[in-house]
């Protein structure tokens, strides 16, 4: 059934359809409606889940970890400060191989207080072992939550579904909300191979000496890499059941492009508009929407970018002292290629400042006119 809903409610519906068993969450703008709607759904009996109204995000993640360890499907949602506070437990969930799913609404970090979109909060969690998927529409949010549960449970790793504050979280779009039956077919009940079980007692997370620890980390890496195999077949099956196609990396008019603009999140859809007009003007420009950030789809990125001369990366995030995080990741994916393109890094839209078609055009034209980047970071729309 198609309904016009906000991005946050797309999450709530997906969590309901996933027959999530335990929700533990703490309010934070701009995530709050996810939790409010879930608590309504629980009250009305539409979602038969235990909803733990915790006293902090740190506890929210700890509850999810406990619930998943006990063998139940667990979900939480947060933003910015909340995600930062969870940091210790993000490592814990991944290390314990628990497929918790988290909806993360990108919001800039304090100080000063800012509730608007920026990706630094989620990207700063890149080394925690969580899978990360970035969305460009409300439909994609709903679908990604279902896919995240499926993939996470298959590889026994937690997954984060990430989207922009306000541009998606509070924006109403038509979303096809699937019926329960096809979702049940796509997402079977969570049945972990090991769990806390009095009939089969086991200890989890015991003291692990150097003799074993490294192999455990190696297994996490292997499981993460396995997502590259699991995800395409999952997307395929999802497409067959629900009629919507996804890819980890989405090229847009890249055929014969000399310059490709790489983006993620809602900026990708604005970028497509700009690319369309520039193509009409005869410019050989294409776009690349990066949907999956962890594991980083390096191979797909190389395939998409291998033949172009220049890549412009528009980052709505910053790693101070190094630049845009997507730019870094792209550079490292390309650095061993014999014919690698020049990579131009741009920073724009921090703290929710608008990234307009004009600013995207500025990015493309700047990269177009230079042979090589003049500096590591090019700031767009900076007031002086």
């Amino acid at each position, binding site marked *: 059934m198609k309904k016009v809903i906000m991005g946050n409610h797309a999450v709530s519906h997906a969590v309901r359809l996933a027959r999530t068993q335990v929700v533990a969450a*703490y*309010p*934070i*703008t701009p995530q*709050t409606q996810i*939790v*409010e709607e879930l*608590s*309504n759904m*629980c*009250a*009305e009996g539409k979602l038969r889940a235990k909803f733990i*109204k915790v*006293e*902090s995000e*740190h506890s929210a993640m700890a509850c999810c970890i406990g619930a998943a360890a006990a063998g139940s499907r667990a979900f939480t949602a947060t933003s910015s*400060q909340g995600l930062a*506070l969870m940091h210790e437990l993000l490592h814990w969930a991944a290390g314990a191989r628990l497929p918790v799913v988290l909806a993360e609404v990108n919001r800039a970090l*304090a*100080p*000063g*207080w800012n509730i608007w979109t920026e990706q630094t909060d989620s990207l700063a969690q890149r080394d925690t072992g969580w899978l990360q998927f970035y969305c460009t529409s409300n439909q994609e949010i709903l679908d990604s939550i279902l896919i995240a549960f499926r993939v996470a449970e298959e590889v026994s790793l937690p997954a984060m579904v990430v989207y922009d504050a306000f541009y998606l979280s509070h924006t109403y779009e038509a979303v096809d909300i699937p019926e329960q039956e096809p979702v049940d077919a796509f997402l079977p009940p969570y049945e972990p191979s090991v769990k806390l079980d009095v009939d089969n007692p086991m200890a989890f997370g015991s003291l692990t000496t150097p003799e074993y620890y490294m192999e455990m980390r190696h297994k996490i890496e292997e499981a993460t890499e396995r997502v590259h195999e699991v995800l395409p077949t999952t997307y395929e099956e999802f497409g067959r059941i629900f009629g919507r196609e996804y890819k980890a990396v989405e090229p847009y008019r890249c055929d014969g492009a000399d310059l490709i603009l790489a983006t993620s999140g809602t900026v990708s859809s604005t970028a497509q508009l700009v690319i369309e007009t520039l193509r009409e003007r005869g410019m050989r420009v294409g776009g690349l929407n990066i949907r999956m950030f962890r594991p980083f789809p390096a191979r797909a990125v190389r395939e998409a970018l291998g033949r172009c001369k220049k890549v412009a990366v528009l980052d709505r995030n910053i790693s101070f002292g190094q630049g845009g995080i997507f730019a870094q990741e792209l550079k490292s994916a390309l650095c061993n290629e014999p014919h690698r393109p020049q990579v131009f890094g741009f920073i724009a839209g921090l703290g929710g400042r608008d990234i307009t078609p004009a600013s995207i055009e500025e990015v493309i034209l700047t990269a177009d006119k230079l042979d090589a980047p003049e500096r590591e970071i090019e700031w767009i729309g900076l007031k002086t």
Partner: protein
Amino acid sequence: MNHEQIHEEELVCSGHYACQGCGGVIAMRHALRALGPNTIVVIPACCWSVIAGPFPYSALKVPVFHAAFETGGATASGVRAGLDMQGKTEVNVLAWAGDGGTFDIGLQSLSGAVERNENIIYACYDNEAYMNTGIQRSSATPLRAWTTTTPELFSKETPKKDIVQILVGHKIPYVATASIGFPDDLQAKFRKAKTIEGTKFIHILAPCPPGWKYSSELTIRVARLAAHCKVFPIYEVFDGEHYVINLEPEGKPVAEYLAMQGRFSHLTERQIQEIQARVDYDWEHLLHKAMLEKFEFRGA
């Protein structure tokens, strides 16, 4: 209190970002009035993070440090230490947090500060929910109240956490409850807090028109009624032992207080009676702790 007195030294400016009838802003106004300009305010995330005004403005005439939500007690401890090392021991350090930042996410850092007996004043303006993010329940939300995470069908099933008892358990030098409905008492408590060495905790009832669903001109009346119905008794505890009750409640029925607020509009007659019974019990218990056989009250 006479009118001029309030305006004598106003440290909260007009043009702040509070809603009409906000109890939290009135609370700060009285607190700073009592503490004076020699005060530094630490504000963890709460409505006051917004009320204090957007960059590059500030609604307070004293220094403000905005802090992470869970760190009121710890950040204030750090500010205290930093000032002390420069010999600025006379500066008041005021941690100013909401109920969420105090009862819930900030309880650990508050407990740490109190146990170390940091020389700070920690004030909690209690509007009984997470109001900044749009009215979600906190552990200060009263039994059966509506919030967006405790919908009417599923209204809050547990009573309000007794934060004063938690602090009393720390043997804190000074804990007091206060209310914006009784500004003389509130100011007297902050003035007293200035003179006491160690951690001082002041728990202020600060009604919230949008969150409690009453009309904004009723804020003071709601606050006064809370005390007079014994829902929010006004008292002090010294050194975690000695109780002094500062206000003799008129003993109005709780129903009167509940009826003023939309957040309780779904209550049944029986639920109201249950609430009344709990309030009566808690009050008796308080009298017992104050070792008062009969009513005997002393101003702060």
